[in-house]
């Protein structure tokens, strides 16, 4: 069988699934560019009447969606920085040193990665309420870090293990302290791994729903996914044109970034995540 013929067959076999995957994107795009009266009518079509960007303007000017995006960004950046700050030293110790109870610790992290925060949501809510952190972005930053950190440690460990030890040892012999060898030799070498881990943590935090929904009760503190879901909850006519514009803004940049790192993700998963 020629490669061309095989390609046609492969694409044909995949097409039903690919259509289902792409259908929501087409829906988002088509609806976000429509005007309100085009949606609530009997004669609807996929193509918008004109290339209408007014929904985006309305979203930012009247609905303050910018604030939800800023909240999401603050939380995601904060959670990424905090989880890397604790995960990098831990992953370094677990790959380079003799940590007492190493395997117990690794198993513990693995199990915490499987515990869904939603099962513990009442406990989480009460704990943050006790510290007065409900409605504070800080509570979600801390919660996200704690739940996404195990995966970060796991990914970083698999990258760190690929860096040869000799380089650092050479640096120690040349008189570098452990810390400066770590910063000047080790970190630059595993920077790609750290970046991929950071992006993945960022995307996870950006997309998280249940904890943000529960810990941030005030509308002004809502993250983008929570606000979008919140907009569908009105008893009055749901403004789908605005909602689709919002999902488009909140999902496409993340999808592009994710698509660009998926290669590394597959590598990292087969190295450490699943094995």
């Amino acid at each position, binding site marked *: 069988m020629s*490669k061309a013929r*095989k*390609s046609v067959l492969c*694409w044909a*076999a995949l097409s039903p*699934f*690919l259509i*289902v*995957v792409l259908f*929501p994107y087409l829906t988002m795009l088509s*609806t976000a560019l429509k005007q309100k009266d085009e*949606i609530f009518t009997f004669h609807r079509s*996929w193509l918008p009447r004109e290339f209408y960007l007014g929904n985006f303007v309305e979203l930012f000017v009247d609905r303050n969606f910018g604030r939800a995006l800023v909240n999401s960004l603050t939380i995601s950046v904060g959670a990424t920085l905090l989880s890397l*700050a*604790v*995960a990098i*030293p*831990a992953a*370094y*110790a677990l790959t380079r*040193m*003799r940590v*007492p109870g190493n395997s117990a610790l690794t198993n*513990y992290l693995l199990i*915490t990665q*499987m*515990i*869904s925060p*939603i*099962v*513990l*949501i*009442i*406990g*989480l809510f*009460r704990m943050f309420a006790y510290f007065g952190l409900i409605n504070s972005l800080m509570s979600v930053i*801390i*919660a996200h*870090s*704690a739940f996404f950190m195990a995966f970060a440690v796991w990914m970083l460990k698999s990258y760190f293990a690929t860096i040869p030890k000799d380089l650092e040892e050479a640096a*120690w012999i040349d008189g570098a302290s*452990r810390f400066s060898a770590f910063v000047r030799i080790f970190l630059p070498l595993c920077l790609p791994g750290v970046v991929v881990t950071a992006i993945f943590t960022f995307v996870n935090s*950006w*997309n*998280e*729903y*249940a904890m943000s929904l529960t810990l941030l009760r005030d509308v002004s503190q809502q993250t983008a*996914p929570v606000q979008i*879901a919140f907009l*569908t909850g009105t008893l009055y006519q749901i403004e*789908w044109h605005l909602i*689709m514009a919002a*999902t488009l803004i909140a*999902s496409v940049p*993340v999808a592009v970034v*994710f698509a660009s790192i*998926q290669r590394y993700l597959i590598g990292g998963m*087969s190295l450490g995540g*699943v*094995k």
Partner: protein
Amino acid sequence: MSAIDSSTPIRTARLRRSGTAQSNSLFALILVAPCLLLSVTVIGYPIFDVIRMSVFDVSRIGVVREFAGFGNFIKTFSDPVFVQACWQTLVWTVAVVGGTMLVSIPIALILNEEFYGRTIARTIVLLPWAISLAMTAVVWRYVVNGDFGTLNMTLSALGLPFDGYPWLADARMAFTLEILVGILVSVPFTVTILLGGLTSIPDTLYEASAMDGARALHSLRYITMPLLWPFMQIAIVLNVIYVFNSFPIIWIMTNGGPSNRTDILITYIYKQAFAFGKLGNAAAGSVIMFAMLLVFAVIYLYLTKARGARDDV
């Protein structure tokens, strides 16, 4: 001068490495400590708190009153909605995980072949992974909207009689659609695991079997499937864990309705806690779910350990 310069670092380096193992492992513990502290506080304390609430009488605003033994559990188990949610959780988990495996295995096999545009196909297949479950659910809720959704619009344009059909009004249909969305969002992760498994199968095996006259279907049955099985097991267990307590799809698409017919355990618990203020019941439900999660986690650890042991041999 230079002799001193070069000799001192070597001595200290040696000292550092031959230095007592104790101080070294103490340093290692210090590096691990922040990670452990964050995890034990934010995950460990809520576990303790939920277990405590489940055996105490808790007021609406969360004041823990007297010891209640298994009172909360008995109350929870005698709630018909809870029992119904248990069954629905079973259906949800089995259907989503089973459907995901059925869809993912052929997709992974195809993506493992060499063909034009494979990278693009792979990117599209993995796309649902990048999007928030909450936003996926919102978009699908609109897609299947009876009056304004793009599904009915497309079906009517094709001449099918679905104009104005309210997909989410009927509980059975709504639950089926939610299961399909659940499958859609679980496929990317599953395909990733299976692709990892497929690339680990050495080509020489296929070459040898082709030399022995085996046909493609035989190779699939007797080489690919048995060698892929450990990866399928892992994918099944991890999917069970993720799907079992998946919250946003059902919460956003139907909120458990109509009349609790699409509630699963996690949406039931969330309603008990944050809509009805029955914190004791919610805590008991959480403990039951947590125990089940632990069982799955242990199965996962066992599977990966067993695989690790085989790899060593």
